[in-house]
């Protein structure tokens, strides 16, 4: 099959045949995949599709297949965070978002590949091996939700869920030429999302078009009493699908076009901004002076939280276990063998940043920077409706190009981490190609103002052809 389908395309196919046939076709496509996007497929998928067929189209996503990032807990389906340390772990419960998807009739196709514990920008740190970018199999799909973006780009799922701690939805969306949204912190329940850095991350949808992002958000968004950070607000995301940006005020932070931004990326983004002007929006330059500190603050906070979040993986309750003469030796040997290099690096750095005598210098200072970054957004967004810039400073890089140099890999997150520090919503939409590789336009909004960024992205999609470009793997 391998074709790009929107939710409405899928529903049309279901009405012509059945959800079961549609799911079976997807599973067949996945079976022939060359991109290694899935860590496993769900053996209950066809049964779910049959149930959807019986339900006669009840539910917003009745019979619509979806791919789930491997760090979102799925009852009865292995959830490993692409880590050896969770090998064989099958959650006894569903994440909130999975419950919501099931309630709306969605069909879970399987779990998608990711950087181990979502720590990465390329999906190269997965214990299952890298996922290939459907636009160029020698390139990374981005990360950490590389699998979720790549399977949508390759036509192996119409929609997927990723998680975004510092750009992990938007980066792979940009690299794979699909749409990806990071919701406002608190808009989607994290219950069941295996934590990397709790104070930063959100589950977010990925799809071939903006409309599908809104539909999935209508399913997964909303209050969940099991997540204390979840916010009780009624929002209809689909209501924001309006093709009108007349009078929209766009802010363009100069800091997002800093050193090292690829020429093709820069051009595509400026062309997009011109397009907005043509469509009736205005734009102005804005300043986000603390952007340059955001990356360091982000990594300090993320690693600190991660060092604590990952402490539970000690070989006692799940996953493989190495023996030792006592429990501490056992736990230590288990962690040394089954955590990958990048995870170990971040746990060690995070432990250091939190330790007595260093906490003031690193962790607490990073929290102060976080407040400053937040203020940058509040200030800039008090004058404009949205901010725009390149999601990633470059298109997808080659597999192996950066993995041996963690610092250069960290630097690629420079335009995506400030939003996680501030908790603001942001979306990446395709805005053209650079040397045949997709470029993502990032649109950032005020807290809980997903409506404006969805409307902006939707109007852009309706008035351009960028969304019609297809990767080699699909053509």
């Amino acid at each position, binding site marked *: 099959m391998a074709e790009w389908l929107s939710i409405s395309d899928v529903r049309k196919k279901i009405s012509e045949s059945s959800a079961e046939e549609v799911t079976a076709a997807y599973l067949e496509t996945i079976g022939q995949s060359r991109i290694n996007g899935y860590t496993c497929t769900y053996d209950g998928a066809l049964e779910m599709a049959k149930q959807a067929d019986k339900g006669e189209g009840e539910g917003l996503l009745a019979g619509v297949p979806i791919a789930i990032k491997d*760090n*979102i*807990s799925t009852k009865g389906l292995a*959830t490993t*965070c692409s880590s050896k340390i*969770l090998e064989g*772990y099958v*959650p*006894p*419960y569903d*994440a909130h978002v999975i419950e919501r998807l099931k309630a709306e009739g969605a069909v879970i196709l399987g779990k998608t590949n990711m950087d181990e514990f979502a720590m990465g920008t390329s999906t190269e740190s997965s214990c299952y091996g890298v996922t290939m970018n459907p636009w160029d199999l020698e390139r990374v799909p981005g990360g950490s939700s590389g699998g979720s973006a790549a399977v949508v780009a390759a036509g192996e799922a119409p929609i997927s869920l990723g998680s975004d701690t510092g750009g992990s939805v938007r980066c792979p969306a940009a690299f794979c030429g699909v749409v990806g949204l990071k919701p406002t912190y608190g808009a989607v329940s*994290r*219950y*069941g*999302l*295996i*934590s990397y*850095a*709790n*104070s930063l991350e959100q589950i977010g949808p990925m799809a071939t078009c903006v409309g599908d992002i809104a539909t999935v958000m209508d399913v997964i968004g909303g209050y969940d*009493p*099991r*997540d*204390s*950070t979840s916010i009780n607000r009624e929002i209809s995301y689909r209501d924001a699908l309006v093709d009108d940006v007349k009078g929209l005020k766009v802010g363009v932070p100069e800091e997002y076009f800093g050193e090292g931004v690829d020429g093709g990326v820069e051009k595509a983004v400026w062309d997009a901004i011109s397009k907005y002007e043509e469509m009736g929006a205005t734009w102005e330059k804005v300043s986000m002076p603390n952007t340059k500190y955001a990356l360091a603050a982000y990594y300090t906070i993320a690693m*600190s*939280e991660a*060092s*604590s979040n*990952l*402490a*539970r*993986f*000690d070989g*006692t*309750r799940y996953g493989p276990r190495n023996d030792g003469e006592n*429990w*501490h030796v056992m*736990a230590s040997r288990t962690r040394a063998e089954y955590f990958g290099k990048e995870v170990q690096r971040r746990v060690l750095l995070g*432990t250091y940043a*939190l*330790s*007595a005598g260093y*906490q003031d210098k690193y*962790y607490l200072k990073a929290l102060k920077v976080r407040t400053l970054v937040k203020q940058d957004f509040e200030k800039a967004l008090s004058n404009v409706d949205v901010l725009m810039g390149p999601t990633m400073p470059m298109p997808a890089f080659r597999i192996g190009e950066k993995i041996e140099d963690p610092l250069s890999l960290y630097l690629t997150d420079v335009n995506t981490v400030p939003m996680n520090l501030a908790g603001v919503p942001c979306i990446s939409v395709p805005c053209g190609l650079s040397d045949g590789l997709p470029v993502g336009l990032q649109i950032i909004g005020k807290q809980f103002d997903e409506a404006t960024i969805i409307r902006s992205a939707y109007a852009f999609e309706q008035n351009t052809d960028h969304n019609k470009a297809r990767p080699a793997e699909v053509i």
Partner: protein
Amino acid sequence: MVYDNPDGVMIGLEVHVQLNKLNTKMFCGCSTKYHDAEPNTHVCPVCLGLPGALPVINRKSVEAAMKIGLALNCEIVEQTQFHRKNYYYPDLPKGFQTTQYDFPIVSGGKVVIEGEDGEHVVRITRAHMEEDPGRLMHMGTIEKSKGTLIDYNRSGMSLIEIVSEPDMRSPKEARRYLDKLRNILEYLDVFDGSLEGSMRVDSNVSIMGGQRVEVKNISSHKGAERAILFEIMRQKNLLRRGGKVVLETRHFDEARGVTISMRTKEEEHDYRYFPEPDLVPMRVSDWGPAIQESLPELPDTKRERFISQYGITGMHAKALTSDIRVADFFEIVASKADPRAAGTWVADVLRGELNYRNLAITSFTTEDIIEIIGLVVEEKITEKSAVDVIRTILDVGGSPMDVVKEKGLLKVEGDIVTQAVSESIVENEEAVQDYLGGTEKSLNFLVGQVMKKTKGRADARQARELLIAALKD
């Protein structure tokens, strides 16, 4: 008299109290009634720390903590703030304990105890909320066990850690403080001290000329007294021999009654405390007035009321209010029987008999003691017989009247006693003469004779009075 504390003993206690009367755990909906349950049956993704599960604070836990704080005269914090205390141990399923750090729920209170020299104030530094870990179990002894088993039923239970200033000056004062604390907590109905592991104590002990030593793993009030006593002796001996008491943590070996060094200051853990990102601060200062209002009458107030309302002695009032169940028991009895008699019979006799048998007040009914007191007040049985009835009910069972009838304890009629008096005078002329000659002791012999003739059913005092009257004539 002022206690001069010759060795400069300073004792501060950290008491971990399990809020086992709440219905659910601290961060999840699991039941707290696990004490007789199979291992790992009262667990869920949250208290098992499964990947992805998130905590939600139990409002009742916060309210209970605030209740305790107010009862200990503490100030309440503006808003809750939880921290993670990071350390590795198999009973800790998340690899960190959710606790409070620089913003404890309550701080700065006091408790008044009966000290070495009268009323003594123990200042409360703070009390903070935290979760209980699971429990390790071994098959047989630790040394011989083939492995360690973990029961997570306890994991996630609400704990409150009450930290005192080093204001206690003797093991006895420490014990009194613990007793008082338990008493107050039970009054608040947040805690049942009879359940295993419901109150765990760490003790900081220092004497003049030495540094502070922390003694961990004390599980009873008696144990605390013993551990502190041992620790003071150890420190004194060490200093006397020219040694130094260094900052360290020691472990109390309850079986041997000794403390053993665990780690010195240099080996202290770095817990890397940082704010728990999964729990948002909750503003609680506004709840204070309503919770203050809901506080029940506390032991000291109740004691004063018992004295004024029932006219009982201070000693009795203190004994009766030292356990909420006894106090409640007494009030029921006092409402249906003579309050002063009730004070004596419950505080002295019944409590004594129960303590002797290691039984709780729940082992006796208010109906039975009311009936027994009635029989004594109406002079149907003697006080001695009443004690016999209580003992029999405790040891054998039965109702007061059954016991009285079965044992023939009903006081005999007056004329039978009069007859016994006459007979005794006639039959013991020598004793009568001795008595009349001024030997008071002989009267006791005659009373004994009357008692013998009535098979003990006569009231000794009455017999005595009748004898004196008869011998005057």
